[in-house]
């Protein structure tokens, strides 16, 4: 194991985040705060409680999820796409590193950023509404697992994309709709029965539901199922990355 390489990649990526602190931290926190002010405070005050939780507090876990999913994807996809685009990736490919070190460096850094962002949003939200975290351990577990999974997904996207458009098309056309329709702003139980069934095909529903359960102990699906879903997604992404490095897909040909 080349620990010096992991540290080099991780540190460089974290330094990149600090260089672009407005884009990587201020922007997501600001946009989430805006969602919160509009939906939570302005409109939310007219919405009744959901399962005994005020609407403002109810949307906090969903907003955190929305933010860390998008940020994880954009951070790690950019981290690998940009060197591919400029050509600096030659150094990574010629270095004595395996996919394990590359992932620990890049995905570790992207996931770290996401967890930091999640923490900032949670802290910011606590100034506006009363938030209780019923199961902090599980909350942290979901936060870390989802950050890691979506960072892995972003990494795959960055390797696959051969143009800037492809890089943004998946987050906008797939991830954003799934997240918005995945129960960020509402409980699935508020939908007509037919749409409840359709929603269960949306994997993001499981992620948000599980994360929300760790706060308020109410969920659309069993928390065990949520966790299983996260683990499945993580395993799928890991397998794909392993395959990418094994075959050199779009990297070494």
């Amino acid at each position, binding site marked *: 194991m080349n620990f010096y*390489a992991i540290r080099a990649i991780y540190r460089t990526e974290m*330094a990149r985040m600090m260089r672009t602190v407005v884009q990587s931290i201020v922007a997501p926190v600001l946009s989430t705060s805006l969602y919160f002010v509009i939906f939570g405070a302005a409109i939310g005050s007219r919405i009744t409680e959901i399962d005994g939780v005020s609407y403002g507090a109810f949307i906090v876990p969903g907003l955190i999820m929305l933010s860390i999913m998008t940020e994880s994807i954009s951070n790690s996809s950019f981290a690998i796409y940009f060197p591919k685009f400029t*050509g600096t990736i*030659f150094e990574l490919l*010629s270095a*004595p590193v395996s996919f394990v070190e590359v992932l620990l460096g890049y995905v570790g850094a992207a996931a770290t950023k996401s967890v930091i962002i999640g923490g900032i949003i949670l802290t910011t939200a606590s100034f506006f509404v009363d938030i209780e975290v019923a199961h902090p351990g599980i909350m942290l577990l979901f936060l870390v697992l989802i950050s890691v999974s979506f960072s892995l997904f972003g990494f795959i996207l960055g390797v696959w994309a051969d143009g800037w458009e492809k890089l943004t098309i998946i987050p906008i056309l797939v991830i954003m709709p799934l997240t918005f329709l995945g129960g960020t702003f509402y409980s699935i139980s508020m939908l007509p029965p037919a749409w409840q069934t359709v929603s269960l095909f949306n994997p993001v529903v499981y992620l948000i539901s599980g994360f929300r359960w760790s706060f308020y102990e109410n969920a659309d699906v069993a928390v065990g199922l949520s966790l299983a879903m996260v683990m499945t997604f993580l395993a799928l992404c890991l397998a794909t990355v392993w395959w990418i490095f094994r075959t050199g897909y779009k990297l070494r040909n």
Partner: protein
Amino acid sequence: MQPIISVNNLTKTYAGGFEALKSVSLDIHRGEIFGLLGPNGAGKTTMINIICGIVTKTSGTVTVAGHDSVSDYRKTRSMIGLVPQELPAESFETPYNACRFSRGLFGKPEDPGQVEKVLKSLSLWDKKDEKIIMLSGGMKRRVLISKALAHEPEILFLDEPTAGVDVELRQDMWNVVRELRASGVTVILTTHYIEEAEQLADRIGVINHGEVILVDEKQKLMRELGKKELILHLTEAIGRIPERLGGYELELNEDGTELTYHYDTKGEHTGITALLGELSEAGIRFNDLNTKQSSLEEIFVGLVHQSR
């Protein structure tokens, strides 16, 4: 002595069917400067990229100091530094951080002293904290060399190090390469400039259409270069070379009007004075003469042309 790099029957066929390398075999000796010459698209960069692990090979083997470049890639790659042809650099990084990153990536512990030494040797120390994007093209190239040297490699690949570089900087680069060799680093240099290979290389390999068509000591090639031709245009055609001139390396053209003498400029006597005297005595007169020297460039162009 075991070669430091041994390439055996290496082939590479790209997905589109293009055969970039056709069974290439080549040994690089420890501590030498090897000049790899070849026109664009000959397969130079593909070969380097395979040795360094950037591109996957189709078949064949590459060993570095006896280690297989695929099964033992950690060992082989940590011994190699690569300066690519283009100038890709982390635009917003500083030379210092870029070097430190490269050193870590190649598995070496932090060593500010080593990074400082490398940056100083490439006259980059006073620019160490500037953003790379602000540096000139020549400086960027130095940054890439310093990155490649940050992990103290035993082998350095320089893919066209002086393409588009001004004369002064080229001299500087050459000095850097000579210093590296003096410190025991094996250098493999690809270039378009024959002059560069003449100046630097111990051995020269020519590659064209994915095949190595010549590998030879530069000195030997230079001896070839030392040969000159003296061409005498005769006033009257002669049927054959007179016997008394049998001791000279002479050639007569078909219609008997041109006599060509091959001689070595580096020899003690060129024999020109004696030959001209003998000609005069033999009554052979000439109305013009010229001399011709074949350059490495000519040998190179000739070889490349032949292999088409």
